[in-house]
């Protein structure tokens, strides 16, 4: 293709374009690293993403995108208009990071990797999105569809994808297709979402608790009963279902009766019915424990996602697999509970791709994550190729 050439109306073979995309992407290494460092060092805890959103939006603006804004929820976005603009592809990543504003968010740059607090989740993908306008410019490719680049706020923890849901509900024109871009792992290809319930069970002593009565043991023993009852719930293997008890905390010392205990959990399933059934069982358990022990037990489910997604034979999935295979990247296909769920819930056909290889950490006292620099340019090339092939599929549909 020549300079400033638009995507032709007759199908082109994106696989044949890959070497050119790879070559252009390879020139982006320094920009990618710089983007990731600069974005990663701007604090953006869930619900306080304004500064990072402003920076991201400014980057898109400098990259020549149109309509670069941040909305009241601190979503940040920009639009690369397509030549016919009848369809819109959204490339989305989460903008919030599970780090307090006061935490030192310095990112260390080593020869082969980046190290920093939650750099993998998800400064990496934001850095890649911010580099996309320049890469398209380098490639001199204009898509037929509009390309919407979106940093979604309030995705993590109790954020419950609120930023992304807000954006999608307020958008004048909904995207016709989506690519969710995650920091790791390069090769992941998620085309379906597990349903999910994320919540807490809280056992709390009532104000009139009888402290003097022998055998009253506070909030911890009832919580252990909650856990053992959860352990007796039949979790089916098919449809794929899992119950993760992620964290438990309660009490303050050896000899003080614990006033409160909190269990944090995440329930995942391919089946909406099973999710509903188990949620009901959890409600029963908390009520039973509450009455048995004379305490207040409460179930608080603050994040709900329903299962859904594409079939493995969908053209988006098929094309993405072909691109990964052509790049000698082993595709990893599995269902996800990530922010793709918000797109799927809106009926937007979507896939999730990963940017590079790296290590995520979930230990509370160890927040530094590592991301390999080497594979980043391949990850970016894969994303561009997936966008181009998605553009073609959408254009074919529109025609």
């Amino acid at each position, binding site marked *: 293709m020549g300079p400033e050439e638009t995507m032709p109306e007759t199908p082109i073979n994106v696989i044949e374009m890959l070497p050119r995309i790879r070559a252009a992407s390879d020139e982006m290494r*320094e920009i990618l690293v*710089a983007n990731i460092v*600069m974005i990663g060092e701007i604090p953006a805890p869930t619900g306080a993403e304004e500064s990072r959103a402003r920076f991201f939006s400014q980057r898109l603006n400098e990259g020549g995108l149109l309509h670069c804004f941040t909305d009241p929820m601190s979503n940040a976005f920009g639009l690369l208009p397509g030549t016919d603009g009848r369809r819109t592809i959204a490339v989305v990543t989460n903008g919030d990071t599970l780090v307090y504003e006061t935490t030192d968010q*310095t*990112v*260390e740059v080593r*020869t082969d990797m980046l190290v920093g607090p939650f750099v993998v989740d998800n400064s990496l993908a934001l850095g890649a999105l911010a580099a996309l306008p320049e890469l398209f410019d380098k490639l001199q490719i204009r898509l037929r569809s509009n390309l919407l680049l979106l940093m979604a706020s309030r995705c993590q923890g109790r954020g419950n994808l609120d930023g992304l849901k807000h954006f999608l509900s307020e958008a004048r024109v909904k995207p016709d297709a989506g690519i969710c871009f995650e920091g790791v792992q390069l090769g992941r290809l998620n085309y379906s979402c597990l349903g999910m319930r994320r919540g807490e069970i809280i056992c709390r002593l009532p104000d009139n608790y009888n402290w003097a009565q022998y055998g009253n043991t506070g909030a911890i023993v009832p919580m252990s009963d909650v856990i053992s009852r959860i352990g007796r719930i039949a979790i089916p293997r098919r449809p794929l279902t899992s119950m993760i008890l992620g964290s438990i905390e309660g009490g303050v010392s050896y000899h003080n009766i614990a006033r409160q205990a909190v269990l944090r959990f995440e329930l995942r399933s391919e089946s909406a019915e099973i999710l509903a059934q188990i949620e009901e069982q959890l409600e029963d358990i908390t009520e039973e424990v509450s009455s048995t022990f004379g305490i207040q037990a409460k179930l608080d489910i603050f994040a709900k996602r329903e299962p859904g997604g594409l079939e493995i034979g969908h053209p988006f999935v098929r094309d993405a697999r072909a691109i990964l295979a052509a790049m000698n990247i082993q595709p990893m296909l599995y269902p996800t509970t990530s922010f793709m769920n918000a797109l799927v819930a809106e009926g937007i056909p979507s896939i999730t791709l990963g940017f590079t290889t790296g290590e995520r950490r979930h230990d509370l006292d160890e927040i530094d994550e590592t991301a390999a620099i080497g594979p980043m340019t391949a990850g970016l090339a894969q994303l561009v190729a997936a966008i181009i092939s998605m553009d073609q599929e959408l254009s074919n549909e529109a025609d």
Partner: protein
Amino acid sequence: MKRTKPKRKSATAKAPGGAGIVTERIREWLDTHTFHHSQFSNIVQLVEQKRKSGVTISLCIPTLNEEKTIGKEVVLFKSELMNRFPLLDEIAVIDSGSKDRTLEVAASFGADVYRSADILPEMGDKRGKGENLWKAIYQLKGDIIVYIDADIKNIHPRFAYGLVGPLLFHPTIQYVKAFYDRPLMFSSGVRPSGGGRVTEILIRPLFSLFYPELAAVIQPLSGEYAVRREVLERLPFPIGYGVETSHLLDVHTQWGLDAIGQTDLDQRVHRNQATRDLGKMSFGILQAFLSRLESHTVLKDMPELGSVMRQFQSHDNHYEPVEHLIREEERPPMIEVPAYRKKFGRTR
């Protein structure tokens, strides 16, 4: 309050009657020569101004065993201020003989790397940061040279554009120093000035005594500054701790206070130094300072200065001295080096 521009007074004005004039002069200078990096954050505008001025800009990072931080500095400056916006024409690392992978890491992210010993080899090789800074004048091509230390954890493009900005927009300013931790433009109320321990205990009192106008330089020891070549090539360079202090004294004496500017770069996260190390640093700075007092004829008949700094440690139940030989050697102004004049077509 309306201020009238006072006439230039001797830098050494010490009489009580002169104190008010100095204070007024300092206030005026602070108002007109103190900047905040955000004033120059429109890099497109900076690049345009650079083009109009027809100048080239080099960035020099002096290093000694900085493999942990150098990669980030190089990649950020290269990506932001060379690839995205062509503000810098050159990024060079000048190394004093690192034993770690400093040079390899810097080169891998696209910096030009040099060993200090390989530059002007006929002039010999001395150990010290000032040596790297001095040799950079010969090695680097820019009309403006920006020096930035290699140990900054929170490095950001503002460290370079915040220092270059005043030089591009204010032709009379020759030398711009960085200062930190004082967000002047975004906070209100009275706050203490922001030097480190050596600055507040040693440098500012000395400046107040002998060069009172220079007391207004908030962080005279900061390792980040941008300078025009015409000035840089005429400055002698102590190769050790005294280089920053002597620069200020020399620029002030030769070109006046208005040739100096300072930029608030917000925060700088770097290694903290032990008090004993600051003692050695102060000793070197004092050597350079006192020698300037003599050469600027501020003090006459100075005795010969010692070169041994003694600190003490307890050993069992007695104290013993620990001696450090600290000799602030100086390199001559680069303009006096024939090879330099030849390379850059300069005359003395």
